[in-house]
């Protein structure tokens, strides 16, 4: 056993670092520093996506034939580390990690030709249209219907929590095409090549942090071509399950969490303790920081074992273990950041948080991002399968074994 990266990888690390130092524009850097969610500021992160694509680095996890980098697991980990160290905006997951790999696996040749290049290059952004007001955890009960009419489907109903739908130009979605059999058996998976079909209306939703990230999408007799279907009609549930595998694997999360910890460690050197002196010297704070550091190291260890195909990572409970651990840690780090910022986390600073607003924050970047990050992180235990549902799934794998 050893934890070192080989010597050749040090050269790779330098090469990555040099590019990441030189390539981003000022706006992209600002957007990265102001990222308080999985979803970085849209305009700038897509610009960064296109720059990385020009370098050939937009999709490290993709196969080379589709434009991937051909990097090893270690190289991808190093890339993520170097990327986070510089506070650059993380590329949005929906295309690269979700619908892209799904199209490679299950899409038609025509769909691959038509959609993969735009996902790779960052020309397109895909929103995910699964959830509905009455179909959250019980996703299979979704009701938004698609009725077959010649070469088209006619869609009626509503989606909600479609992240960044107001910025997206495409959508992948689940629709109900049959009510006859089991509810899972009447669902179809569709790719929509536009967001501006007649009858489609997007309504943004303001989040706890005062920012718009989520949306509702309404469909009123929206006619879309059947050529966007993935898999067979009424077989969309298994398509979605296949996609879930991509959604939950492939990227390293711990470099992001480690970066957050580093920012906290830096901030406490000057942040005053309510007991006098700075927090870094306050034994009460040290103890609490120690607890979260220990949790972080445990998660880093686990994630590296998953990425290096250690048997501990092939446990059937892995996706749930990974989801629960990473999201609870994100929330703990958010709470810690708010505690360090103290009173300075209390001003509402939506304008200063907006990229290129030119508005100076009250406090510094750490104080500015503390509360929005904490508030946004509340959602991490809700999306992608709530942590209650994940604990159910995890418990079930124990009995199945």
């Amino acid at each position, binding site marked *: 056993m050893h934890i070192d990266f080989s010597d050749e990888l040090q050269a790779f690390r330098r090469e990555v670092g040099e590019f990441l130092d030189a390539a981003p524009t000022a706006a992209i850097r600002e957007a990265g520093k102001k990222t308080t969610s999985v979803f970085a500021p849209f305009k700038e992160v897509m610009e960064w996506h296109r720059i990385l694509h020009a370098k050939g680095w937009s999709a490290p996890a993709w196969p080379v034939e589709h434009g991937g980098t051909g990097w090893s697991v270690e190289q991808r980990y190093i890339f993520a580390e170097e990327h986070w160290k510089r506070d650059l905006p993380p590329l949005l997951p929906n295309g690269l990690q979700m619908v892209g790999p799904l199209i490679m696996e299950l899409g038609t040749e025509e769909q691959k030709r038509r959609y993969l290049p735009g996902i790779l290059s960052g020309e397109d952004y895909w929103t995910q249209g699964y959830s509905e007001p009455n179909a959250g955890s019980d996703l299979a*009960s979704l009701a938004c219907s698609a009725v077959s009419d010649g070469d088209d489907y006619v869609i009626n109903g509503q989606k909600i929590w479609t992240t960044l739908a107001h910025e997206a130009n495409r959508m992948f979605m689940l629709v109900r095409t049959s009510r006859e059999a089991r509810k899972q058996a009447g669902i179809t998976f569709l790719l929509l090549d536009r967001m501006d079909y007649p009858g489609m209306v997007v309504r943004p939703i303001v989040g706890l942090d005062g920012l718009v990230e989520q949306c509702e999408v309404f469909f009123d007799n929206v006619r879309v071509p059947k050529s966007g279907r993935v898999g067979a009609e009424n077989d969309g549930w298994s398509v979605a399950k296949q996609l879930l595998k991509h959604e939950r694997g492939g990227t390293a999360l711990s470099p992001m969490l480690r970066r957050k910890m580093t920012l906290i460690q830096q901030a406490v050197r000057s942040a005053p303790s309510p*007991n*006098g002196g700075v927090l870094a010297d306050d034994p009460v704070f040290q103890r609490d920081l120690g607890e979260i550091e220990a949790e972080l190291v445990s998660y880093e260890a686990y994630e590296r074992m998953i990425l290096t195909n250690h048997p501990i990572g092939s446990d059937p409970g892995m996706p749930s273990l990974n989801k629960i651990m990473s999201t609870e840690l994100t929330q703990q780090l958010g709470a810690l950041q708010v505690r360090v910022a103290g009173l300075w986390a209390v001003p509402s600073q939506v304008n200063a948080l907006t990229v290129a607003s030119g508005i100076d924050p*009250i406090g510094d970047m750490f104080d500015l991002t503390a509360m929005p990050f904490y508030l946004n992180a*509340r959602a991490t235990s809700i999306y992608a399968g709530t942590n209650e549902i994940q604990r159910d799934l995890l418990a079930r794998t124990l009995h199945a074994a």
Partner: protein
Amino acid sequence: MDFTFTEEQVMLRDAMSRLLGQHYDFDQRQQIVHSSAGRSERVWRQFRDMGLLHAPFPEAVGGFGGKASDLVLLAELLGEHLVVEPYLPSILLTGRALARVDGHAGALGWLERLMEGSALGALAHEEGHGTADITRIATELIPTDDGLLLNGEKRLVLGGTDADVLLVTARLPDGALAMLLVDPTLRGVGMECYSTIDGRRAANIRFENVRLAPDALIQSNADKAIQDIVHDALLALSAEAVGAMAALLTASVQYAGTRKQFGVPISSFQAIAHRLADMKLAYVKARSTLFYTAALIESGRAEPRDYSLLKAQAGRLGRAIAESAVQIHGGVGTTDEVSVGHHLKRILAIEAMFGPSEYHLRLVGASSVSAASAAPRREAMEA
């Protein structure tokens, strides 16, 4: 022992509760928050007409009593209804501090105006990332030949944006603390105004060589007076947090009982049922501590550690309840459109003000250790 409210108190609470129910439901509250003033003159007049601006003061200055239990019952309702009117800064903090000042004509004059509702006051006390410990006040007040010179910076002055008068805490050259009244329009007073995450207007206020007349100083040797303000703040903020917890619990029970997934109300899932049970446990702990502390205060038995203990419980248990409430509401809970997230944000702001839980818990721990070593060791003596 009696931890109940008097009949008059119950009447006052019911009246205020009705008023807020009619004029301060969540939608009305959001309209007020988003209005240009960020508060409602109309509601303030209604508060005045109902006597709420007089209620938390001793009879000697024209109030209705001003006991700890009065603060508790008023503040609980403010918390439950997410009230953003400047009741805490103007009435509970500035007003009550002025009422305790002896024989200063200026202070009494302002107090009258605050109680009439014809002026607003704000407390400019906290500095840096928070000033729970009053020995850390750094704002300087220097006596000069013709008056006083004030220098320093205060943070998160609630209601500071449109206060007619500021109650400022500062340190004199000999180290003693002082309390003074400052006209915010004076030269050298700089305000950075903003809204807070919990829908209030506040300011960071910088005093740069502000020249004040001698009678601006309403109290020197003000350590006890300032500690009294902090204690009022701890009690009122904790009561607000407890009121917020009540609202969070009610909203969550109701949501979980009506929201269906997998064909059944989500309250039928044990994970949710136990979460609700834990919320109830937290609420009952916090509210019992609140009433108990009020009774200690009214019996003249409250020590600083009792206020700290209450604030720590309100902050910790409050955050736990609020985070659970968001989780139970699922995606809906992460939006600005329902009240639970706003209660969460209020509780986080309360946690940040006048010292976080960890600060107060440490004080409680330190004081219980010293209490134990001071007490006679009974077992040893009996043996």
